[in-house]
């Protein structure tokens, strides 16, 4: 009796130590924990945590725990490149890449040249995967999709004319330019296209111009700081299209409604992910993210980070190893459902290794976001200004 006990104990102990001897699988990640993009970094860290917890709860990957080696680029591109080099030297199988396109572009290019797969999960500039590279994969929607969601709504409601107000940043330009192309495709006339540089933002002259042209829809692409001001001034100036539409970013954040108050009512916006989606596990994800954020409402950036961890784990599992080439091949054939949405990497329309996921649209009704597009989210009817 005692012998069998000792034997089984010894066996289990050795099995345990054998597993431990392998050590955890380390995946690299670069994000902006400090600096200008710190707010998004915070969201991403929460997403990472929730993702890691889930993967490890299911037993990890290949029998091993999964860990993230998170490097802070302090919102600076040179630090980001130094961080990327550290991760490459640490031998990680792939690197998760973050929010700001100016940082991601340089970081991803470097990783690609070092033949390390880079998984982009938040930055949306079209040119990251267009043309991209064999080693760069993106699971979130590109800027074109941001524009398409809104333009689809315009088209579905037979809008004839529209106006565009967008910042001059890379993201805003991506979305606004895509909107121009799609509008032409759909036969909607763009009566006014005005870009603005950040600074003392007085949108009144622009809004006055637009008011004079009286378009059916207005597409606004701005970051958080401007989206609130824009809506306030639009109400003040008295512009009245049938619909105000935001191209995600500032308009899709929970703070938008809080800070703009009544000015935000009836504003539609494209967004990458909302808790009301019908993917498996979406509700639970929202709860977990909120907990990880200490009660704060998560933005879609958190969900994207979560998805990145899941994708990375799945790719390694499929590859059966942490060899970079095998992981890259695994990413190419990967096809999974997550609480963020379906994920696979395809080549289409000039994009390479891009997840063909569409954007959703939500509208502020009675001070809260409700989904209004597409049909799969069981949308509420849209309320129009006129």
């Amino acid at each position, binding site marked *: 009796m005692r012998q069998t006990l000792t034997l089984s104990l010894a066996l289990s102990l050795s099995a345990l130590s054998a597993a431990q001897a392998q050590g955890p699988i380390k995946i690299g990640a670069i994000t902006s*924990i400090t600096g200008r993009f710190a707010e998004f970094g915070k969201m991403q860290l929460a997403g990472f945590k929730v993702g890691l917890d889930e993967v490890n709860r299911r037993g990890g990957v290949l029998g091993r725990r999964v860990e993230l080696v998170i490097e802070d680029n*302090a919102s600076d591109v*040179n630090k980001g490149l130094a961080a990327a080099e*550290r991760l490459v030297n640490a031998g990680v199988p792939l690197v998760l890449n973050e929010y700001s396109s100016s940082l991601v572009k340089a970081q991803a290019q470097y990783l690609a040249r070092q033949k390390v797969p880079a998984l982009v999960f938040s930055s949306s500039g079209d040119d990251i995967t267009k043309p991209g590279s064999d080693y760069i994969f993106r699971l979130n929607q590109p800027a074109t999709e941001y524009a398409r969601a809104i333009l689809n709504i315009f088209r579905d409601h037979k809008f004839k004319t529209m106006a565009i107000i967008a910042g001059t940043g*890379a993201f805003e330009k991506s979305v606004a330019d895509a909107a121009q192309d799609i509008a032409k495709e759909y036969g909607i006339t763009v009566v006014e296209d005005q870009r603005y540089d950040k600074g003392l933002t007085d949108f009144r002259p622009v809004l006055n111009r637009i008011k004079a042209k009286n378009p059916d829809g207005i597409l606004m692409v701005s970051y958080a700081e401007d989206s609130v001001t824009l809506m306030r001034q639009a109400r003040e100036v008295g512009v009245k299209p049938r619909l105000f539409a935001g191209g995600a970013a500032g308009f899709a954040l929970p703070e938008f409604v809080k800070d703009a108050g009544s000015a935000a009512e009836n504003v539609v916006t494209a967004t990458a992910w909302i808790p009301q989606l019908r993917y498996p596990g979406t509700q639970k994800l929202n709860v977990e993210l909120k907990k990880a954020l200490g009660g704060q409402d998560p933005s879609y950036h958190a969900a994207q980070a979560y998805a990145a961890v899941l994708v990375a784990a799945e790719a390694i599992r499929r590859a059966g190893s942490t060899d970079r080439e095998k992981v890259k091949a695994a990413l190419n054939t990967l096809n999974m459902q997550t609480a963020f949405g379906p994920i696979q990497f395809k080549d289409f329309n000039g994009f390479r290794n891009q997840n063909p996921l569409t954007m959703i649209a939500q509208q502020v009704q009675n001070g809260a976001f409700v989904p209004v597009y597409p049909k799969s989210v069981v949308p509420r009817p849209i309320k129009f200004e006129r």
Partner: protein
Amino acid sequence: MTTAAPLPGTRPRALTFGNVWLSLALLAALLLYPFVFGKALNFGVATLIFAGFAMSWNVLGGWAGQLSLGHAAFVGVGAYTLTLLAMPERVPAFLGGPVAPWWGALIGMGLAALLAAVWGGLTFRLRGSYFVLSTIAVALVLRLVAINSTWTGGAEGLFMPELPTLFGLDLFDRRVEYGLAFGFVTLTLLVTHLLRRSRLGYALQAVREDEDGARALGIDPAQMKVIAFMLSAALTALGGSLYAIYLQAFEPHTLLELPLSVQIALMAIIGGRASIQGPVVGAVLLSVFGEVFRTLFASANLLIYGVLILVITLFAPDGIMGLFRRRGRKLGTAR
């Protein structure tokens, strides 16, 4: 920097501090770096490029005594020129095809010098403060142009296309880039040393110390400043071209922003404008500090820049190298 006029018979002060041996020692240390820290080449390349920027800035800032807060403009000229000329889809038709990066860099230097000539020619007739303000404005205008014009890629910026090899060396290999950046810093040190011994250097010092006196000697201050400006601009643009290759992708918002200009100027000033190696020392120290304490001081990085510049301005106007000079003087060794 106000002191009594130098006594006749003594060598002019400032900018004679920092002899050739110090430069050689510095270069030797920089040369050894990749062998000791071979795993941190990205950091090394970036630091060297910035050291070169600071040295180039100092040709105008230290020698001619003109504070420029718009040098990011020249970084941009160098970066954009090399990249645009190397891209088959954007190179102007009359050139018949993409231009090799070394010619692209040279053209960038020429354009930068041209910009400096025009701009300097117009503004150097004014007193110092106006020049500083004008540098900010010109850099901002350039940034607006880069952001809004489609030919330069607009706000989304540019990606570095494939580049031909240089004598068989892959330009994207960090070791090669380190070598090029090292060459860049060496060049700027060489130029600065040569300035010290040249008539141009003498004239610039005279202008900086006492403009009216210099005019009495037959030196045209405005013309001297313009030449210094052109030299400074060309060198900065060369660094900018290298920077573009290192980054492989850049956007105008971050490449041409005011904080970059300020960073370059501060590196040179904190290191010591009056010394030859000061800018390199400043760049290296600040970069190392920033990287080592990145996690410790995270957001406080720029705060420390601010504190340092304040401290230096108040107590050590000749920068860190200036501290050594003073000590040297006390020991009776340096002049």
